């Protein structure tokens, strides 16, 4: 069992409250999973010539030293904004290949530092512990943004560590949270590795994120990638997926994992249970429904 929440704002006036709104939702899902919790938040996109990377280090990490190493190693100005044992770094990168080079340099040269997200707007913070602890540690309530996903985990398929926590991101600005268990993830991990997708863990949900990254990389739209996922991924799942400008929800055809969607003029919310949605302003007037099995629900803002 796990608890997942997603919130996509339609009314820009609410963007300053995104962190608080998502935190209130995630705390309600605490008893669906006590092992670890995490949040992916989309805000403050960097310009087309830069890349934003969330780094995660050990509790005693020295971000100032890391910043110096990055500046020296990458040979350019890099900004590193620490947030507990995570930090958001922004570096110059004119294209995807250059972003990948930077990620590759970090993976090869910085011991004990892992990348939780890479893109222009996404940031991912995740840790062992209860949602409330994780929310406080990373000051999620103070965060603004356009959309966000959250997860609280009760592990069934792989170990309880920070690396195994959700959300998982395996591609630019893409992340996924999952309630359920996949049965053919080992096979797909092998295949996706041979296609060049990088994985950090043996977790089944990371494979689902990698699968979407692979399909999107081949030119599929998010909806097309999810349609293929219904055919290729075997198991139980409710997925919530975030992209730079959008948000999608998908349940497997058997649909034994719960999900509720709600929409008002101001926001779209998904959650494992209505309890989380009840925390949102004006939820009593929301249109509320249970997503159909094997049907893709997606929202995307117009890219300016």
């Amino acid at each position, binding site marked *: 069992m796990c608890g997942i929440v997603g919130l996509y704002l339609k009314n820009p006036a609410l963007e300053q409250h995104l962190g608080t709104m998502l935190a209130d939702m995630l705390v309600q899902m605490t008893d669906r999973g006590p092992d670890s919790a995490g949040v992916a938040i989309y805000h403050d996109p960097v310009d087309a010539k830069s890349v934003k990377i969330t780094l995660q280090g050990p509790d005693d990490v020295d971000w100032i030293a890391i910043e110096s190493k990055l500046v020296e190693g990458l040979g350019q100005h890099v900004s590193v904004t620490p947030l507990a044992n995570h930090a958001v770094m922004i570096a110059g990168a004119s294209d995807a290949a250059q972003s990948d080079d930077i990620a590759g340099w970090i993976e090869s040269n910085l011991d004990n530092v892992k990348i939780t997200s890479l893109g222009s707007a996404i940031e991912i913070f995740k840790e062992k512990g209860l949602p409330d602890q994780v929310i406080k540690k990373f000051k999620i309530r103070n965060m603004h943004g356009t959309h966000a996903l959250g997860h609280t985990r009760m592990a069934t398929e792989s170990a309880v560590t920070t690396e195994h926590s959700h959300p998982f991101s395996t591609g630019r600005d893409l992340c996924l949270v999952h309630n359920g268990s996949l049965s053919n993830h080992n096979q797909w991990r092998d295949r996706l590795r041979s296609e060049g997708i990088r994985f950090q863990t043996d977790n089944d949900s990371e494979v689902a994120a990698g699968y979407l990254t692979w399909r999107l990389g081949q030119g599929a739209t998010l909806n097309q990638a999810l349609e293929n996922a219904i055919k290729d991924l075997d198991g139980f799942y409710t997925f919530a997926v975030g992209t730079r400008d959008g948000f999608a929800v998908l349940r497997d055809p058997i*649909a*034994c994992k*719960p999900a*509720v969607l709600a929409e008002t003029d101001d926001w779209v919310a998904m959650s494992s*249970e*209505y*309890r*989380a*949605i*009840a925390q949102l302003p004006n939820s*009593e007037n929301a249109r*509320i*429904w*249970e997503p*159909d*099995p094997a049907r893709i629900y997606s929202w995307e803002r117009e890219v300016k």
Partner: protein
Amino acid sequence: MREFDLQNAEVRLLNQALHGSDLAGQSIEVVNPGGKHNVAAGAQFETQVDIRGHVGYYCAGMNQNARITVHGNAGPGLAENMMSGSVTVKGNASQYCGATAHGGLLIVEGDAAARCGISMKGVDIVVGGSIGHMSAFMAQSGRLVICGDAGESLGDSIYEARIYLRGEPTSLGTDCIEKPMETEHIEELKDLLNKAGIKHDPAEFKRYGSARKLYNFQVDNVGAY
């Protein structure tokens, strides 16, 4: 009239009150349910319980005698194993509502999701809208009335429960077949629709039930074991 405000009071306080006889014969208002679990579970006496809002998992489970109305939507496992009394949902119900229920009347005025009436054992269920896949799976007895459509595999491995469907099933499950509507069935259905307060012409419904081909071992299948 007693009121329980679940914003302040634990669900357990409400349920303990419903387990005892002190409130028998009374009306109970439950406000601010906020999607909480197990609201009004295990009620034992003739009370009228009105829940003003949406509830989470296992609302009205194991109900005996009480008349419980949810003025909102219900999460998974509504009225699971109900014994008697009635449960009404003004909105929609999530998956496996009325599962294993032995008696009483469950009314979902909106839609019910997957596995509605799974393994029902004598309950009557009336759904004003449509129901999801695998509904009435292994349903043993009781009646399931659906005024809309039914999802895949309706009545798979059904025993002696009766299904009345006004719309169309996406597919019928193994051993579930359409059966003729005799006068007895029209009368039975009319009575159920009346009790549920839902107006439809019983002649618009089709009846489904067990072909009874799974009841005995078929020697042709011996190779499968």
